[in-house]
């Protein structure tokens, strides 16, 4: 950085000596633009956080990084050549220096053939880039055939991520953490991370439950849109452990900014342990939900508040006031204080044509708790208690 700056000042001061006093504009342009080039080359030689892409975490990502660096270097070189010619011309071919225009320049042999020479040169540069890009593309684009590939289904929701490990049945729901808890990592931290192992090929299957989203973690490099009703795929093999952060990249409505993605890459052994833990947790939750136990209102309310605040509050708000008109309030709403059956139905099946999605993937206990909470919180005070058995019946 320091070197570049001294270079700049040297060059501009040397041009100062030759510049006639009257016109100093080219000098100003040149020093300004040299500064820009200086900054550019800083970004080329250093891959520091905050200026260039972060260090890739897998082979595919590394290849993508390399092709990025290649095109950037080629572009910078071309830019310097163009700037050099323009500034040479700006400096020497000026009327104030008494330069007479060469009226026959375009009729010289060069003028006659430039339309062939220039495209051939540009084509050469293009082929350099396209050739390399093409081979990288083949590798990145096509998911390799591999029996041991780990399939992770990535589903975008307004505004959270759902990760399903298709082989083990583990499901991770990942939501942003409010600023009070997340601190400096606000908008880059989630409640449940996507945990992935190193050393094995991983295939992401992208889809969406509502509108377009896009899964983007710069260290993993592969980005794909999540399209409702369709599945797109990407793959990567990770070779570095660590925590990598990204965000939803495709505009998905109001809280597009609140869809962080955090990937925790661990060793295969650690991943196996984690998988077992998750399976055990899931079994325990299912067992708890399926017992015919009758829950007390307080238990359901406590559970319901926790679930509501993570799953429902993004739209309907913790206050139950919603964000009308897109997201209606629940406080005093016809659904929340009306018939129980209709309330359960909209929660399980969602509402067509609105952002309200079906929540049928949650278990009976969770749904019962949420409905109970919504019917009693914020002065709704219906006194209704919905049991898991009621949900089971309604399904």
């Amino acid at each position, binding site marked *: 950085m320091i070197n570049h700056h001294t270079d700049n000042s040297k060059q501009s001061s040397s041009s100062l000596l030759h510049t006639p006093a009257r*016109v100093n504009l080219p000098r*100003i342009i040149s020093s300004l633009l040299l500064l*820009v080039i200086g900054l550019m080359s800083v*970004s080329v030689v250093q891959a520091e956080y*905050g200026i*260039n892409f972060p260090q890739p975490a897998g082979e595919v990502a590394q*290849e*993508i990084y390399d*092709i*990025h660096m290649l*095109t*950037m270097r*080629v*572009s910078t070189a071309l*830019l310097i050549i*163009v700037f050099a010619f323009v500034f040479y*011309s700006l400096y020497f*071919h*000026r009327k104030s220096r008494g*330069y007479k*225009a*060469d009226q026959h*320049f375009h009729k010289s042999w060069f003028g006659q053939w430039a*339309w062939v020479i*220039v*495209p051939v040169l*540009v084509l050469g540069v*293009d082929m350099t*880039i*396209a050739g390399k*890009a*093409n081979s*990288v*593309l083949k590798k*990145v*684009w*096509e998911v390799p055939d591999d029996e041991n590939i780990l399939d992770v289904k990535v589903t975008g929701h307004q505004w959270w991520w759902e990760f399903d490990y298709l082989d083990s049945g583990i499901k991770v729901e990942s939501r942003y953490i409010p600023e009070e808890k997340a601190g*400096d*990592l606000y*908008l880059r931290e989630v409640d449940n991370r996507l945990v992935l192992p190193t050393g094995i090929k991983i295939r992401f299957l992208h889809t969406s439950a509502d*509108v*377009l989203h*896009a899964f*983007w973690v710069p260290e993993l490099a592969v*980005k*794909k849109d999540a*399209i*409702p*009703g369709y599945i797109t795929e990407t793959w990567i093999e990770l070779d570095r452990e660590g925590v990598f*952060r990204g*965000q*939803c*990249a*495709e*505009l*998905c409505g109001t809280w*597009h900014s*609140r869809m962080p993605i955090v990937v925790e890459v661990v060793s295969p052994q650690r991943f196996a342990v984690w998988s077992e833990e998750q399976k055990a947790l899931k079994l325990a939750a299912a067992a708890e939900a399926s017992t015919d136990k009758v829950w007390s209102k307080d238990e359901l309310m406590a559970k319901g508040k926790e679930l509501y605040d993570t799953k429902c509050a993004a739209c309907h708000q913790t206050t139950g006031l919603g964000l009308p*008109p*897109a997201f209606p309030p629940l406080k005093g709403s016809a659904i929340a204080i009306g018939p129980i059956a209709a309330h359960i139905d909209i929660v399980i099946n969602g509402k067509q044509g609105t952002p309200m999605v079906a929540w049928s993937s949650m278990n009976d206990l969770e749904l019962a708790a949420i409905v109970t909470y919504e019917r009693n919180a914020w002065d709704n005070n219906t006194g209704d208690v919905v049991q898991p058995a009621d949900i089971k019946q309604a399904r």
Partner: protein
Amino acid sequence: MTTTTMTHDEAHHHGAPTGWRRWLFSTNHKDIGTLYLLFALTMMFLGGASAMLIRMELFQPGIQLLDPDLYNNLVTNHALIMIFGAVMPAAAGLANWMIPMMIGAPDMALPRLNNLSFWILPAAATMLLLSFVVPFFPGGGTQINTGWTLYPPLSVQVGMSMDFLIFAIHLLGISSVLASINIIVTLLNMRAPGMTLMKMPMFCWTWLVTAFLLILVVPVLAGGVTMLLFDRHFGTSFFDAAGGGDPVLFQHLFWFFGHPEVYVLLLPSIGVLSHVIPTFSRKPLFGYNSMVGAMLAVATIGMVVWAHHQYTIGMSLGAVTYFMIGTILISIPVGLMIFNFIATMWRGSMTFETPMLFAVGIVLMFTFGGLSGVMLAVVPADMQYHDSMFVVAHFHYVLMPGAVFGLFAGVFYWLPKWTGHMYDERLGKIFFWTNVIGFNITFFPQHFLGLAGMPRRIIDYNVMFTEFNVVSSIGAMIFGLSHLLLLYIVIKAIRGGKKARSRSWEGATGLEWELSSPPPFHSWTVAPKIK
């Protein structure tokens, strides 16, 4: 009505009619050109204001000024207003003013169509503004939070303001197709005897190609948004997977329009540049023929590479390879254009009045934007860049110098011709420097933001992105406010100043400089002879 016609017919012999009738009923290419330019100027300030609000919100992490939907509505409006309200009408204004004068015609070929195509614009702008205003009223539905790309299913979720916007887009489309038809007819039928196509001034050539592009792509956008309207209200499912449609179809329709649209914005400015650079280099344009060829090549290839805006939708390997190679190949004709400009300056006898400063700025910064475009064309790398701030930086580096600075250059270049007064050269230069420096401070850091992982179109960001956002926002304030100076310079030049000669610039060539400054009400009543 008859009496009006009578007075107007008389007026045509003597000079401009007076009062509001002169403007509302105008069939005069210069008056309509002026209307277009004033409309564009107004819209530029509206679009600029929304951009400044966006940057103010992004000045610090956290949500300070706006709410998320309002923020994204401003993002949407900024794009639509700048593209359809500012750049295209400004380019059409230049075309209206200059084309008849450049080809030795008395007026446009279809003067009444000309009147219609302008007066649709204020109506369209009103609809566009209504789409913004309506959500503030009870029952007005939600803000348009989709961005200018209007991708479904998000755009199906939006309330009635989206219908206003769709209607506005239809009107804007009709207006630009009508204007294009008029320009093509004028250029093909009204040229002075002896002016063959290959003797036509470059600005006319660029507009001929632009007009054809518009006729080819604008109806497709109209079709796309109509399908969207049907999906929203009439139960069709063109873009709904649940009904057998596909959301991605809309993206194809949109970008089939959207990518050639980039060249629609760009080419008129390339035309302006092809006059400004030779004038101030005192030397003819280098490679007129190759310039025409390059432009035709850009337009042709530009029509068939639209899907490079959608690399992440999961196309087949064959499809992305095709779109990648096609996109990279565009660098050949564009490179040739830039080369021709540099070769025109080369061994010229240059002076640096404001139009030339802008021209040099374009050559340098547009090259920069074009090169980051080549980076974006590379599919594997684009998987990183896509929808990040890097893209925002890239297309502003292409469109600000490529389109807007070209229009500024044109305005400064022809202002003496239009008003009969020289503008204030010192202020013009100050405007250039504040504008260009503000622009670079605004958009250069956004490359870094994108590479570090900041997506586009987010209202709130993590603290790690703070520094560059602060710099960018400060630059945006300088950049935005500098346009007030442009307004002042233009008003000052209209009101008075040093008298401009017919040939206002020493090195200027072309028929428009044979007419007086300001030119007579009917440009060329007797067609000039072209050798």
